[in-house]
């Protein structure tokens, strides 16, 4: 059994049989990227890092993390493009997109990981379901990772139908709320569960629309809401999130226990599940560090800083240590109190200047960030 198999195919994503497997897999990955991606090799040389320095988990912080911003401005590959079977882009909310490309090996372990992860939460089932995708319809002109992720999620239960809140209009997208509401009316009578999958803001628009129309559904037992992506409009506050879930429970008849929320990034294609205390616990095939933004040195547990995620999943690109633009706090699992022992992080917002007032040409688009 390879290190990657031990890590990504474990039944419990939060436990591994071998504690050495993660470190070895990371070391192998860094070595592979170093020898197959000249630009990455130059970065390691510039930062004075060698994979041999990875003697223990305490050395993981020494791997130079590549920021998501770096992938927005540079394309790095460690395998020929022809060997990549999936490409995706970030949603580019600030005008720049990261492009990633995954080869067969990455997909093999990635799909295995996803199946194990979602099985663990009993989200994979043979009972068919209708899907309402609170996101974009797949299309030849869009390559956002979020579209591909949402489509992937519609395979967790055999799909009876898929309705998209943002319909492909040939080059652009247009809102499709009328269709979504009509399909919910049909699905509510069908007796089959409904899965609503996608972005929180679109769930908000949907439940507001249902409220406005005075419509209330009782969707079949087993119906679920699976959310991922930005909470910016809700200020990232737990109160805002719970208020939305409560509105959704009222409008759709789906109990809170069947609502799930994930964190992921196109440059770090792992799923993190938000626990009942609002934190994301780290699976055994990843590590989360928080770094001081100025010195990039790791900060103490409980102190805020930039979130750095590490995983050996991706072979086709040097995504082994990625610095997100999320501000987070990392804590030991037992401090969370939700029952999970795995370390966890909570998100405080995105790097950026809140409420910036500038009339310098091109500046406002670049600098805005803030709430989640």
């Amino acid at each position, binding site marked *: 059994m390879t290190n990657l198999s031990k890590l990504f195919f474990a039944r419990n994503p939060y436990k591994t049989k071998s504690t050495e497997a993660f470190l070895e897999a990371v070391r192998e990955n860094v070595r592979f990227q170093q020898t197959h991606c000249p*630009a990455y090799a*130059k*970065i390691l*040389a*510039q930062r004075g890092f060698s994979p041999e320095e990875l003697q223990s988990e305490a050395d993981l912080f020494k791997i*130079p993390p*590549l*920021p998501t*911003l*770096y992938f927005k*401005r*540079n394309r790095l590959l460690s395998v020929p493009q022809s060997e990549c079977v999936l490409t995706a882009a970030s949603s580019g909310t600030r005008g720049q997109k990261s492009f990633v490309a995954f080869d067969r090996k990455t997909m093999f372990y990635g799909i295995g990981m996803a199946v194990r992860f979602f099985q663990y939460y009993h989200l994979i089932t043979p009972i068919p379901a209708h899907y309402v995708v609170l996101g974009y319809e797949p299309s030849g002109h869009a390559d956002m990772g979020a579209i591909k992720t949402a489509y992937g999620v519609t395979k967790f239960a055999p799909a009876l139908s898929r309705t998209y809140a943002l319909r492909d209009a040939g080059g652009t997208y247009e809102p499709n709320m009328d269709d979504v509401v009509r399909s919910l009316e049909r699905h509510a009578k069908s007796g089959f569960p409904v899965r609503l999958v996608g972005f929180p803001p679109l769930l908000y628009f949907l439940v507001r629309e249902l409220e406005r129309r005075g419509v209330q559904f009782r969707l079949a037992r087993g119906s679920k809401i699976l959310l991922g992506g930005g909470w910016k409009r809700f200020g990232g506050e737990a109160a805002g999130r719970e208020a939305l879930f409560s509105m959704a429970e009222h409008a759709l008849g789906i109990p809170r226990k069947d609502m799930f929320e994930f964190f992921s990034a196109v440059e770090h294609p792992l799923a993190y599940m938000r626990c009942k205390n609002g934190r994301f616990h780290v699976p055994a095939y990843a590590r989360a560090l928080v770094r001081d*933004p*100025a010195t*990039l040195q790791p900060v103490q547990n409980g102190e*805020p*800083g*930039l979130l750095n995620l590490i995983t050996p999943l991706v072979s086709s690109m040097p995504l082994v240590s990625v*610095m997100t*633009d999320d*501000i987070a706090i990392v804590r030991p699992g037992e401090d969370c109190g939700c029952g999970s022992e795995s370390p966890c992080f909570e998100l405080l*917002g*995105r*790097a*950026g*200047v*809140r409420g*910036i*007032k*500038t*009339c*310098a*040409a*091109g*500046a*406002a*688009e*670049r*600098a805005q*960030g*803030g709430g989640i």
Partner: protein
Amino acid sequence: MNLVSGKQLSREDARAKLGGLQETILDSLCNGVLERGAVVAACDALSGQIGGDEQVSLLCAAGMSEEKAKRELALARRMLSREYLEERVRRELGDTGEKEFVPSDGKEAVRQVRRPLGVLLHIAAGNADALSVFSVIEGLLSENINILKLPGGGDTFSEMILLELIRLEPRIADRVFVFDFPSADREALERLGECADAVVVWGGDAAVAEVRKRVKPDTAIIEWGHKIGFAYVSGKSVPEDALFGLAAHICDTNQLLCSSCQGIYVDTGSFDEVQAFAERFLGVLEACAARDPLPNDLFRSAQIGLELYTEELESAEAQKAVFRGGNVAAIAYGDSELTVSYQYRTVWVKPLPREKIVRILKPNKNHLQTAALLCGPESEAELTGALACAGVVRITRGDNMSFSYCGMPHDGEFPLARYTRIVSFETGARRST
């Protein structure tokens, strides 16, 4: 805030007034202009109320240092004073006397008179405090009727000042209409546009492009778009105090203004010289920043930290070098592209030999604004000429980049002149033959 004929209305009620707005405005037009003198008197009275401790506290609560709050209030007080406004009118509109003359190729005597365009729709942006009210005051000074579309999120300072102006001069109530419809409410904006002779738009390229799409061809568009400023340094003997002045300006404005220095061009083609200058300037910038520290903000530090770190990583392959200090940075680049900086005291330094100034900068047409010129007297005429030819509209010392004076053109133009037209009419007198 929605304000129609001096009455504050809810957004719904304001929307209901849209259908009759044109008629209301025509009534106001038929009643004649509100003469400039009355507007100046109201502004002057308002000026006298500015600068109190309560106002300083209000600005400090909005994140300004006390010293800066006092400075900004003193500026507002000066800009609304009778002396300032009267001088401004003289400089921007020239001789407003209506002298009769007979053109050299004409037979009849004529008079040429400046008159207001009529009705201005101001589409304000939220990127500067009290921008909305200053735009409206310019409209009033040019004797126009003004419709103001407030920026998303409103503009509290502007709303307060407008209400006070109306209290001081109640006739302003029929010359200022305020709406807070969201920009996405295109129908409402189009209705407002139909009432206007010209739309005055503030904001970035996206806002300007949107207005260009929406406004009908019979309505003029007056654009006050976002601009970019930079410094140009030539010669090795630029004195330390000139650099210190530039650094002080960078720290004072945090590179947020159209006139702010985003980066520094060095009159050289050598990357080594660019790096040497960046390192030298970093020391000056750091010393300046230590006197005027930025308040801590984790989210801003994280954004800039990520950007600087990414630049450092890219320097493994590209011609660039990052020089970091405590909360300041200078990044040397091998290219000459004019870009916005990362702001908040992170300045770029790039090569630009003087003979390439026009070629490199000209493509930034209509975005260029202020350039600080730091050079010896022997180069001044040549460099000033090249910068103006490229499209720069203001050339200053380093410390003065964001300093404004009475009668200063705005982005190369006089607003009051743009808000007026010249009417020529024959007076009946004939040339003697």
